[in-house]
């Protein structure tokens, strides 16, 4: 099961990002785990400077905006 982490200090965009990942996963019938990471120290470890960012199984795949549908699908399919 893939583990998605949404990195961000808790702004609205981060919530939207987590929700859209969950929604797309449901559409595709994939079961995944989505966690919101708000701890600044953790975000620093990932070396992310613009949020919201997304990490899949510990690797950052996206940062700085709400990811679009196609991108989320590509992470789920990969």
């Amino acid at each position, binding site marked *: 099961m893939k583990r998605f982490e949404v990195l961000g*200090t*808790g702004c*609205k965009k981060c919530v939207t990002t987590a929700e859209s990942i969950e929604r797309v996963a449901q559409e595709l019938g994939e079961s995944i785990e989505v966690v919101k990471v708000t701890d600044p120290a953790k*975000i620093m470890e990932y*070396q992310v400077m613009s949020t919201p960012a997304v990490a899949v199984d510990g690797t950052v795949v996206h940062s700085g905006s709400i990811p679009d549908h196609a991108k989320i699908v590509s992470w789920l399919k990969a």
Partner: protein
Amino acid sequence: MLELFTSLANWLTYDLMGLSPETKLGTSIHFFIEDTTKILFLLVVMIYVIALARASLNLERVRAYIQQKNRLVGYFFGSGFGAITPFCSCSSIPLFLGFTSAGIPLGITMAFLFTSPIINEVAVIMLWSLLGWKFTLAYIVIGMAVGIVGGMILDSIKGERWLKDFAAKAYQNAATEARNHTDNPEMPEAPKLTFQERHQFAKDELKEILGRIWKWVLIGVGLGAALHGFVPDGWFAENLGSGQWWSVPAAVLAGLPLYSNATGVIPVMESLIVKGLPVGTTLAFCMSTVAASFPEFIMLKQVMSFRLLAIIFVILLANFMVVGWVINAISPWLFSGF
């Protein structure tokens, strides 16, 4: 070409609504229509064009630029990039840590964060269209100076002592690392973008920025319009004195509890100046409203001790007051004919 908006406002206010330009209501509504249509038009065009140009500018590259410079140039670059880099205030903590963990001195990072809310393309466009290029230029110089001087003071008192432990440790590690590798860090390559991608980026930026600020434009211009129509010319000069020293700290304090972004304050600024508030006092008020915001400070609490926050707060307020006094003193020749 911008006279088009005056004609539009004339037609809507005087012909369609049948108001007289002699009445207070008539002047206010005319001002509101002319300025909102003009500003919104300029914003749509300029935000799109600027976003096209900076589609390939990301924070990693900005950081590498700032890292390469020596200390003194660093403050200048920190503040300059703070002005031109798009970034939302919810990203300020990751940005702060990203800079700090790369060994960028606290003062340079803070120069970036101080200047960022004061100067951005929206503020510049609005100032330009409402107050002219001279004032815009002075505003940019002052905004950068506030960031640069604030950053220098922070470093001169070794502000990094009061960072939260994890942030201080990250900074120490990076500093040691930098001493062992004297060569400059590698510059991340600029992403190669097709025009289609740039257009997409610019379109998204436009939608996002406009969606965030349109109500501030309406509120700001609305307040400005009310001041314009209902406060007699020269009222401030008569009632608050013309540039007494205490009007500046009073303006800074008055701006504190008001939390707005530059978009909302600039139209108000224009009206205040026209009604006789001294330019320096007005600027001090504007900076205090825009740059010293409590939400921002509460966020920074995650990486700084309370003591450091308090110091930063005092430095900022002191800077605003100095700006106010200096500009009041030199404005007679700086803005002659203004």
